[in-house]
């Protein structure tokens, strides 16, 4: 269980971040050639100057994701939906400060979605960290490319022709190696494509009743997808062939699925609803048989995530709880009760390089939470241990060196010289010639 100090610490972090979130002012790129944009800007200014606006000046956060950038830099992309007529749908990029475990107070860049594009529904980031795809409520998906350094970052939008007008997509995902893209629709239509060529691998309109969740395996060989009716299927990503349907009892509904990211643990983790109870089941991906299950989170799970190194599994509940489980022992190492008070957690994701999770909900926006899990060995600590061993053996060796004349057994005693004393010898030409086995040099 959480200690009191940890709980207090977490509470402070949450309060601080929430406050920052509420204060965050919208930033709209001013483009003089678009009068409507100018009008929006003026409108926002007027709203802020009142000072007593009852609601948040921004739309609610619908989805979020980490972006891993070079040099161990981590960014966060948030999608906001429209609120009323004065707050448009947005995509915002924030930087993450690992020292304070917080997001930047203002976005590095913002992209405003047109009214006809609808709201962002889901975001998936390519493993390269250079671009991401956003599924929109109008039934299309857009590609966004990230340009520039942290100080002058820009978002460039591109249309993806095969993903135009395909209907609202519940889940979108890149494979771990970045070579494939999958989209699962609310109408049960499942698509797998090669990336970036967009060649169609699978185009199955009747894959599910309605897609609920999906995930690529670590080796990018399988795609697991779940349906709102409780079934789950496994697809081969090489050719789109359906491989298997996960076994379950009649009273079980498989809701969420995540493949293990630890190469030594070839498992698929599923959140299963059994009546009123939510349990986590583990399937062996070499046989697709269930190994066992365990109850981890107290309420129904709404979202599941796994850390990049595969050590931790995380669940978010419909009541706003999150728990973090160590995969090896399936033990809860972190539990935040009502992190998003009374609200369904919409997205939950591990930071690529830190023990921090990003969570979003419509009511409370985006939070980053530092996890109370055992610290990993830092690389410098290992080097320190190694250096310590090295120096200790150097000291031991030196002591041995000073007391070991008899061991080295030098025939000329302690002060044996490093090499024989060189005696200069004048060689007569004939003698030199005799010793030269290669014959006369003059040849």
């Amino acid at each position, binding site marked *: 269980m959480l200690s009191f100090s940890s709980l207090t610490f977490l509470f402070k972090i949450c309060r601080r971040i929430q406050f920052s979130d509420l204060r965050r002012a919208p930033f709209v790129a001013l483009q003089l050639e678009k009068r409507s944009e100018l009008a929006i800007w003026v409108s926002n200014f007027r709203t802020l100057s009142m000072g007593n606006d009852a609601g948040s000046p921004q739309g609610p956060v619908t989805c979020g994701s980490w972006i891993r950038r070079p040099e161990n830099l981590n960014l966060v992309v948030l999608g906001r939906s429209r609120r009323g007529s004065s707050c448009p749908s947005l995509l915002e990029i924030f930087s993450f400060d690992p020292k304070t475990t917080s997001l930047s107070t203002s976005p590095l860049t913002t992209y405003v979605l047109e009214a006809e594009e609808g709201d962002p529904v889901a975001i998936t980031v*390519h*493993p*390269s*960290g*250079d671009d991401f795809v956003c599924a929109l409520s109008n039934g299309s998906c857009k590609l966004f490319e990230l340009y520039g350094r942290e100080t002058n970052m820009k978002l460039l939008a591109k249309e993806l022709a095969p993903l135009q007008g395909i209907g609202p997509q519940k889940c979108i995902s890149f494979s*771990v*190696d*970045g070579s494939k893209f999958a989209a699962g629709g609310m109408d049960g239509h499942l698509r797998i494509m090669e990336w970036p060529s967009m060649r169609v691998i699978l185009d199955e309109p009747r*894959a*599910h009743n309605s897609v609920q969740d999906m995930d690529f*395996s*670590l*080796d990018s060989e399988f795609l697991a997808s779940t*349906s709102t*009716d409780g079934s789950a*299927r496994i697809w081969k990503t090489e050719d789109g*062939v359906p*491989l*298997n349907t996960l076994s379950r009892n009649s009273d079980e509904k498989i809701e969420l699925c995540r493949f293990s990211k630890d*190469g*030594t*643990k*070839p*498992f698929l983790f599923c959140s299963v609803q059994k009546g009123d109870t939510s349990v986590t089941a*583990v399937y*062996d991906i*070499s*046989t697709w048989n*269930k*190994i*066992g*299950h*365990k109850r981890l989170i107290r309420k129904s799970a709404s979202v599941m995530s796994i850390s990049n190194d595969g050590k931790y599994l995380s669940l978010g509940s419909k009541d706003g709880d999150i728990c973090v489980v160590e995969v*090896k022992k*399936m*033990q809860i190492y972190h539990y935040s009760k009502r992190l998003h008070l009374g609200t369904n957690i919409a997205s939950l994701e591990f930071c690529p390089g830190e023990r921090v999770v990003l969570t979003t909900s419509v009511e409370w926006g985006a939070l980053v939470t530092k996890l109370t899990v055992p610290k*990993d*060995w830092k690389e410098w600590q290992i080097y320190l241990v*190694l250096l310590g*061993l*090295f120096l200790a*053996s150097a000291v031991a*060796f030196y002591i041995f*060196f000073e007391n070991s004349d008899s*061991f*080295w*057994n*030098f*025939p*000329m005693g*302690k002060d*044996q010289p*490093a*090499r*024989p004393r*060189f*005696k200069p*010898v004048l060689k007569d030409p004939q003698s030199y010639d005799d*010793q*030269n086995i290669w014959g006369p040099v003059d040849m």
Partner: protein
Amino acid sequence: MAREQIQVLNALDVAKTQWYHFTAIIIAGMGFFTDAYDLFCISLVTKLLGRIYYHVDGAAKPGTLPPNVSAAVNGVAFCGTLSGQLFFGWLGDKMGRKKVYGMTLMLMVICSIGSGLSFGHSAKSVIATLCFFRFWLGFGIGGDYPLSATIMSEYSNKKTRGAFIAAVFAMQGFGILAGGIFAIIISVAFKERFDAPPYELDPAGSTVAQADYIWRIIVMVGALPAALTYYWRMKMPETARYTALVAKNTKQAAADMSKVLQVEIQAEPQKEEQKANSYGLFSKEFLRRHGLHLLGTASTWFLLDIAFYSQNLFQKDIFSAIGWIPPAKTMNAIEEVYRIARAQTLIALCSTVPGYWFTVALIDKIGRFAIQLMGFFFMTVFMFALAIPYDHWTHKDNRIGFVVIYSLTFFFANFGPNATTFVVPAEIFPARFRSTCHGISSASGKLGAIVGAFGFLYLAQNKDKSKADAGYPAGIGVKNALIVLGVVNILGFFFTFLVPEANGKSLEEMSGENDEDVGTQEESEQSHSHNNNRTVPYV
């Protein structure tokens, strides 16, 4: 850049054997190449060290390292290897193997360079520094060795795993070859530049001052393949692979996971099967089923490495004994290095390396058991063929015959147990114990290397103390030492039977995967075939 690297890995698995896989073999094999170079280059320079630092004025023979010093210089790296294997094995479990990999290679680079340096100018400090850094070089090699094996399995094509692993292991032969070739180049260059009379004409002048650089250069160049290994490994993408699937360890992984979950209630037959699989390592049930297997794999690896490492480290002494290398007093220091390097390189080129590649070509055809049995058998035959009529071979006219037969012992060591003792422990044990049993067998091999490094040196000395090298007690002579090695090989031959015999398996069965894996594979194929035929129903 990152995207390209990721794509390479994807293509690596999907494609059939292509250029990708040869690239992967070279990169994965660089670890073994580096290990072999660093471990064996010392044997090329120990004679030179004796001449430089153990010179005795007025002695009839050039200076030689005393037995304990020679054993220390040769063998301290193997003590380091054993320690490093344990330390980095523990560390790899703690924080993942990829992270510790850079440390082992960094250690190898630094200690290769350190081996060529000295703290102080006296002979004592030079030899002491060399021993110190050789220990830590071995420590790094001990960490690198299992990691090279791991990376090997991670990048292997799923279909031709046996040949792939053997090919990677065969890079060891190229490491030995590279050491010899480089020593030849260095010694020829120095000989051209700094000519000197033989020892018997001018004892002091036969060792030129510049000879000191030769052994330092040869030892320090070991840092270069280690650095290249590091560079190439870092360019490969992060491994995104279920290594458990590739290494067929899924049952062990599933068993570990089932211990921390509520397991579904199963039917009676499965429950019984599960109970049958629940015995632990070194339990009575384990010893009954696999005790002899473990004894077989560990003992054969131990016995092989006694013969293999002693022969590799002390080839030059045997060559001198039969006259292929002239008596030391008839050569100067640099010429001696040249002749030793040439002889060892010829052996590596004509027998060690071909032996490895014969194994690569045939291991999946004629099987591990037959290769190991044949290898031990012929090693025994040729060893006795050398030892019993030993006086015959010492005549000048017959030494070519000696060299030919001696080469064949190396050929059949490598087209034989040296390769199979690495492959077999990874295949015959249940998945739950596979890595542990392989580790035990490997550690036995290292102990054998230590015995070989320290033991043969004493045995091979002449029976007459006056004829033994300076500081050595009388030994049993080269002839009897070779007989001892022949007996070691016979023991290896007979211990090989422990591996299949306990299960009553025939040679044909042992040559393929064991029954457990074959069953799994068939099951998997049937399942796949069934699913392929099924149409996609609406769910």
